């Protein structure tokens, strides 16, 4: 495991912003940390980076205590938007960051290329578009070849093209075997690029599994006539209006049996819950 937390909790006064969160991120995966705004994602991440001290519970990052030099040098992060000196160019900002991380100048050029910012490297950071700023943030996170990349809402504020670029970048990194912990409130984003997902709501981790597992079993929708006869014939089926829902069924065998019994089968299709439906169910969001 690259990251493990055990009942990690952060309280401000009586309010638990993060409440006994136990999660685990495996090497080589893209882990989606999903939750509505204010759910506790950023606070959890800040605890993983040692910026915020937990009230109780524990965490290990690459086997080290969060916030220690050993842990931080193996982690690259972009938290709640990039933090750079506005008067410095993109390249100089990376040089400053590289000096702190002990990374060489050649690596600065390599990461600039990786995020496609070589052409704008001499421009002042304050003149960058939001998308360029985010990419520079990812470039800084990649300095020092970290084992774990933590990206907190990397597509926040980006236009659709910028979001697509960022997703492509994360996908490319994942394809190279980079472990990524990606926090987001955008379900499509998580569904598209993450291997496993942790869902946090009101500070509590309400689920942690693969996207497939979260969606649950595939339900087969059958529209047939007469529906009552079909319901009797198909064991374990449920009537929903004028259609049947059946879990874990062999569609071909089912259709053969219904047709053989004289039932007119009009439609058969898998009915899968989207991650969005699962998310709303779990978080209680409307």
């Amino acid at each position, binding site marked *: 495991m690259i990251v493990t937390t055990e009942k990690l909790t952060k309280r401000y006064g009586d309010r638990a912003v993060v409440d006994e969160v136990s999660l685990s991120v495996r090497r080589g995966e893209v882990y989606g940390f999903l939750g509505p705004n204010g759910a506790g994602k950023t*606070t959890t991440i*800040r605890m993983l*980076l*040692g*910026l*915020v*001290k937990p009230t109780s519970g524990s965490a290990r990052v690459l086997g080290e205590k969060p916030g*220690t*030099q050993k842990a*931080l*040098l193996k*982690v690259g*992060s972009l*938290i*709640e*938007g*990039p*933090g*750079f*000196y*506005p*008067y*410095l160019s993109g390249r*100089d900002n990376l*040089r*400053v*960051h590289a*000096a*702190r*991380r*002990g990374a060489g100048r050649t690596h600065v050029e390599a990461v600039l290329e990786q995020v496609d910012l070589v052409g704008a490297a001499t421009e002042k950071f304050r003149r960058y578009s939001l998308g360029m700023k985010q990419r520079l943030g990812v470039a*800084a996170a990649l300095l*020092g070849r970290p084992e774990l990349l933590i990206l907190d809402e990397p597509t926040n504020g980006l236009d659709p093209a910028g979001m697509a670029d960022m997703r492509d970048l994360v996908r490319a990194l994942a394809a190279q075997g980079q472990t990524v912990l990606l926090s987001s409130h955008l379900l499509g984003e998580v569904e598209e690029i993450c291997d496993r997902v942790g869902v946090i709501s009101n500070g509590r981790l309400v689920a942690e599994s693969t996207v497939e597992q979260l969606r649950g079993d595939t339900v087969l929708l059958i529209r047939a006539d007469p529906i009552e006869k079909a319901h009797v014939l198909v064991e374990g089926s449920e009537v929903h209006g004028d259609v049947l829902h059946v879990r874990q069924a062999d569609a071909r065998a089912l259709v053969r049996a219904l047709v053989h019994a004289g039932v007119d089968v009009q439609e058969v299709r898998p009915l899968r819950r989207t991650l969005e439906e699962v998310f709303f169910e779990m978080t209680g969001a409307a």
Partner: protein
Amino acid sequence: MGSVKAELLRLWKWPATWVLIGVWLVMTLTFGYVFNYLALNGGTNTRSMSQQQLIGAMQPENVGAAVVRGLPMFGGAIVLVLAALAVGSGYGWGTWKTTLTAGPRRVSAMAGTLGALGIVVVLLVALTFVVDLGAAVTVASLEGWDWSLPGPGVFEALGASLLIAAMWAGFGVFLGVVTKGPALAVGLGLMWAIVTENLLRGVGSLLGPVEALTEVLPGGSAGNLAGAVGGSGAPGVLTNLSGTTAALVLAGYVVFFVGAATLLKVRRDLV
């Protein structure tokens, strides 16, 4: 070392660093030489300084006193602003977050900032010395005075200047960390350096204990050290404490400001 290098790189390329150093150099030249030179050549001497005193203040051999006399108040205020901006701005820009997640321990990151600011302070004092010496030599040559370069005593004045500037820089760092932003840190710092201590000195003329207190406040002890090493004729320069006492009090302030700021930086959550 990586942290110091990183901080130096960003301070070196920060326009504010050079603007503030430039403003200070213009001030020290204007108030230390230009006005005195004009007064010597037909101006009205409103400070009751004799011609000999004006000449003495501008002699190259007295350049150490010229460097140190401006630092207790106006020079100090500029150093304070620079330090408060350097530290406080990092909260608004989010660069503290980037710094503290880059790898170095928090103490090392803070030491990097303090080290780089220390180097800027040394540079500021050195530049002040060079500019003042250049101005003094120019005036002496123009006036045809017999002049000589400063003696070893100049190191005492420069050492005092460094200590005074370090104290104001420490005060700025402390305010930047406490207020977590540049605006309030600069505002509070300037108010303290320029207004509050002067008001307390005014009250001190009525109340003895307050007067004694003002001698050991940051500006008061800086003024006393400047006065002890020969600085005179500038606002904020005092001569009520011995040089050793003033230097010890100032060193205490440096330790307190730097220590408290580092402790806060290390222990406080960055949210």
